């Protein structure tokens, strides 16, 4: 099992590790970039590097890398090419889309057979690829230049953004990305060509005749089962969707215990039928139901859900969870999630019970087992 958890927050990157007899308890073991806004962090299991994306506000977005020697260094930040005068892409207010990295919102490694390959999703919607472990980045023009990108729009932000990247464990050339709001896009050739594949999703926030359009969907988070990669789950803006067809066709899960609304989802790496969600009321009331922090779990592909709250606050709790706020370890036994209010909880038994690591962290953006 993974013994280190990276927690990216509004005010720094926290490492969480077990301590005590048998490692029964967890605590903060290290803080990096204290006071800086860390939008995302990721460990590369192929070479031991850790990456952290910082948003300095005034000074822009910067990518940092920590190699196996433990020293952090600023590496290259994904940077957009010069915006041509002929560009006509505009946001929802008619202003030109800025060709500049506004936020790093997704970061994943390529396959085990692709050393050095990294994928990075950004606002305003550009996907970047590195072939040298973050020393350089290149905008994936084959996706950026697709005319359908002009249909994308922001979800929870002024600009559209790529928040999820799933690299197929069977063939790393096949990559799917989740976009708010632009649906699910897939390449089968390592990024040479892309297709919009999110058919079956339903955008309740659009006029009826446009609700089925795959290019305007708002998947909040997209995850893929490692051992059953044809199964993907999406926590969507107005519900939960499941794909049995490799992400190309989606089915709506209409009942999921207390609510189908939320942002975060994790899938068991060895059991495609098991997934976890952190529900909230709905998009009009982004709070927890009845003031209780709960995780919902399905073990049968979404036919039914359990509501898990053992060890979690069960009264006057106001702790919503962002889309990258929950993660499961590589065996599917440990779970961890962090909240916008600085709570962090860990489960050693697939969510049956939880221990609180902290109630005082900065707002948590990303929880990731290292």
């Amino acid at each position, binding site marked *: 099992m993974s013994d280190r958890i990276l927690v990216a927050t509004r005010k720094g990157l926290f490492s969480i590790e077990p301590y005590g007899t048998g490692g029964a308890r967890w605590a903060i073991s290290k803080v990096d970039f204290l006071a800086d806004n860390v939008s995302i962090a990721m460990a590369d299991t192929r070479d031991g590097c850790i990456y952290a994306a910082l948003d*300095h*506000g*005034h*000074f*822009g977005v*910067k990518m940092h890398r920590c190699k196996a020697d433990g020293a952090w260094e*600023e590496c290259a*930040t994904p*940077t*957009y*090419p*010069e*915006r041509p005068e002929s560009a006509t892409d505009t946001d929802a207010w008619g202003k030109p889309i*800025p*060709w*500049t*990295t506004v936020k790093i919102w997704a970061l994943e490694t390529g396959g085990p057979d692709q050393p050095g390959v990294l994928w990075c999703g950004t606002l305003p919607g550009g996907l970047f690829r590195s072939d040298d472990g973050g020393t350089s980045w290149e905008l994936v023009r084959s996706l950026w230049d697709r005319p359908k990108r002009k249909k994308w729009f922001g979800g929870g932000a002024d600009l559209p953004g790529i928040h999820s990247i799933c690299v197929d464990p069977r063939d790393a050339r096949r990559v799917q990305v989740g976009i708010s709001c632009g649906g699910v896009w897939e390449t089968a050739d390592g990024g040479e060509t892309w297709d919009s594949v999110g058919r079956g999703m339903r955008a309740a926030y659009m006029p009826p005749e446009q609700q089925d359009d795959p290019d305007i969907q708002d998947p909040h988070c997209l995850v893929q089962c490692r051992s059953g990669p044809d199964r993907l789950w999406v926590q969507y803006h107005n519900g939960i969707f499941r794909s049995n067809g490799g992400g190309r066709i989606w089915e709506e899960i209409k009942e999921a215990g207390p609510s189908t609304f939320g942002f975060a989802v994790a899938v068991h790496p060895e059991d495609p039928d098991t997934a976890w969600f952190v529900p909230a009321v709905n998009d009009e009331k982004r709070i927890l139901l009845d003031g209780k922090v709960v995780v919902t779990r399905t073990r049968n592909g979404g036919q039914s859900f359990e509501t898990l709250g053992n060890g979690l606050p069960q009264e006057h709790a106001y702790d919503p969870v962002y889309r990258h706020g929950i993660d499961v370890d590589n065996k599917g036994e440990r779970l961890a999630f962090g909240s916008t209010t600085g709570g962090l909880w860990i489960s050693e038994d697939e969510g049956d019970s939880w221990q609180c690591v902290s109630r005082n962290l900065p707002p948590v953006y990303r929880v990731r087992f290292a």
Partner: protein
Amino acid sequence: MVRVVFTPSLQRHIACSPREVEGRTVREALEVAFSGDARARSYVLDDQAALRKHMSIFINGTRIRDRVRLSDAVPDDAEIYNLQALSGG
């Protein structure tokens, strides 16, 4: 010569001492100031070489007007201050 000065808050991230440069506009002065220092440039200018959204530049105490092309004229012996804008928090 023009003196280019950077906000102290930038120094926490990257060493960026005052520089004496030649330049008739803000663009010319900054490009000379950042010559050979692309990393420092990226903290002040965005991907399109415009002034970052939450940065401000003053010439002899007056805020510049052209944040995109940085075409404001710079008198001889001027001081160009690169500061963080409070709009960024």
